[in-house]
């Protein structure tokens, strides 16, 4: 166990002593700053009496619905907004204005996608780079099992993904607190689950959001990691993983339109567990439990293939 931790530490050392990760951290910081600037520039100061404000909002939205000039296509969206506003008034939950600490965190949640992109790049190169550097020889002539070396690399990737997620949350919350203060914080998050409105505490919401995104990240990282181990080529691993990560949901919704039974068993149909919190499952017959089982099976397959190939392969040149 100590030995395994030392292996993970080695991987972290190799990551921290290069620029790549620091550039990523910088990009993340720049993105948060950009969000801050945009929020400061564009968001109106949120109203003191939010209930009164929401009531006037509802009134004007209803007027819009009644107006003949409003296109039919817009109407469901407006109706939904009214529903949300009404729910907030009834349950005494102030809206999550983006010029509040919690609201700002909510604004920057989407950068978890950026982190996923970074982690795909790291996972795709952590094995193949040892081959291109030629250091794989020195690594694999040690008196230890090859699978431990491989697993330590994957664990290091996931560890650093977790660090980046925490960093994103902590930094944007801190920035939000400093800039917007901690008064006026909405403490509950309202969302729609299969046509019914619900509310949870914001921390539950952030946990659910990051948790489900993190599961997706673990999966796509395992996929990239496997490709990189098989082909000793990071470009291929990065390209394929990015396509699947960012076009996967489009592909699976296209496929499910054909109503084929196999769609729900596809890896990338299941990776976004947040759909079970907000929104709807991508295909019929899917549930949270179903997706978790499918993901576990895929995970074991991905890591299994990577380990078997890594264990067996001769190290030449």
């Amino acid at each position, binding site marked *: 166990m*100590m030995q395994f931790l*030392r292996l993970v530490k080695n991987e972290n050392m*190799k990551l921290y002593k290069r620029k790549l990760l620091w550039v990523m951290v910088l990009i993340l910081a720049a993105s948060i700053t950009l969000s801050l600037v945009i929020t400061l520039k564009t968001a109106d100061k949120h109203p003191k009496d939010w209930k009164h404000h929401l009531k006037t909002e509802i009134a004007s939205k209803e007027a819009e619905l009644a107006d003949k000039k409003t296109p039919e296509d817009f109407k469901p969206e407006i109706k939904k907004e009214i529903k949300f506003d009404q729910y907030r008034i009834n349950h005494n939950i102030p809206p999550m204005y983006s010029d509040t600490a919690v609201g700002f965190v909510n604004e920057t949640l989407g950068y978890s996608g950026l982190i996923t992109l970074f982690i795909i790049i790291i996972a795709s190169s952590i094995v193949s780079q040892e081959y291109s550097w030629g*250091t794989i020889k*020195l690594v*694999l002539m*040690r*008196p*230890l099992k090859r699978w431990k070396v491989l697993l330590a690399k994957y664990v290091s990737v996931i560890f650093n993904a977790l660090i980046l997620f925490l960093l994103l949350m902590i930094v944007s919350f801190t920035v939000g607190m400093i800039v917007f203060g901690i008064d006026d914080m909405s403490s509950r998050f309202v969302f729609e689950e299969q046509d019914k409105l619900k509310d949870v505490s914001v921390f539950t919401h952030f946990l659910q959001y990051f948790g489900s995104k993190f599961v997706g990240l673990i999966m796509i990282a395992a996929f990239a990691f496997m490709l990189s181990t098989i082909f000793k080529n990071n470009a291929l691993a990065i390209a394929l993983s990015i396509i699947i990560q960012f076009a996967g949901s489009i592909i699976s919704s296209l496929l499910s339109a054909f109503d084929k039974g196999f769609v729900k068993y596809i890896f990338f149909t299941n990776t976004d567990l947040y759909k079970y919190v907000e929104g709807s499952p991508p295909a019929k017959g899917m549930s949270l439990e179903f997706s978790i089982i499918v993901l576990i099976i895929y995970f074991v397959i991905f890591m299994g293939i990577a380990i078997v190939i890594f264990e067996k392969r001769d190290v*030449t040149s």
Partner: protein
Amino acid sequence: MAEPVAKIRHLTKRMGNREIVKDLNFDIHKGEILGFLGPNGAGKTTTMRMMVGLMSISEGDIKINGKSVRRHKEAALKKVGGMIENPEMYQFLSGFDNLVHFQSMMGPVNKQRIKEVTKLVGLEGAIKNKVKTYSLGMRQRLGIAQALLHSPDLLILDEPTNGLDPSGIREIRDYLRRLAREEDIAVFVSSHLLSEVELLCDRIIIIQNGVITDVENVRQDNSEDETITMALRVVPQDKAIGILNDLNIAARAEDGRLFVNIAYKQIPKLNQKLVEHQLDIYAIEPLKQSLEERFLAKTGGGQL
């Protein structure tokens, strides 16, 4: 003789349907520097890759300290240090961090030991610098340091002097000598340069096309009865020839020297006679037949 550190038996490597290395058999002993000599493509690197567990073994086995590399790789490699082909290290890490990295793969980090090996290869001055600033010679030395971290019984070095200038080669030779003698470890070094192995090694295995063609002792002690060729520089020469003929020793004059084939134990007697006849003796020296000559004689002038 003590049990060898490594026993190589019927070692064979197939790739596709080609046999890269065929039925190799040899031992490596404590305290010896064993040379592995052969032209490029002979199969030296392939053999060494199998010895350090980088390549699977098609047939046969390697036992290190009695443990099979084929069946118990981790146990067999516990006391093996190596460097295969180029000394590729992490360029973005310092020499020190590279050593920390490889040491912690085997056990807890021991700064004292890192200091020791750094000193042994003479890298104290540059160990905190990034490897990308190192010269090839420094990288080779760091490669050797890395291989010595866990005090191995067997050190496997693939062309460690490749690309080094003569002084660099000399340095490496000195470390290896010291290691073999002082720490009593077995050193297995490959090279495609005859002159180099000859200077460095105690014993040489010659490999060609994946097959061992010869095993040579480099440092041979002449036995009493062995006949050797001596070169004499004596004036006047014709008088010397007469004296030699009286002793029943055939002599042949060439380039101002006399060459004689005599028994090792006869050398003092020959010297005595020449002195008795008051000849001026400038030199009496054994004509060392270099490994190259012996090698060429054996292979019929085959290209090495």
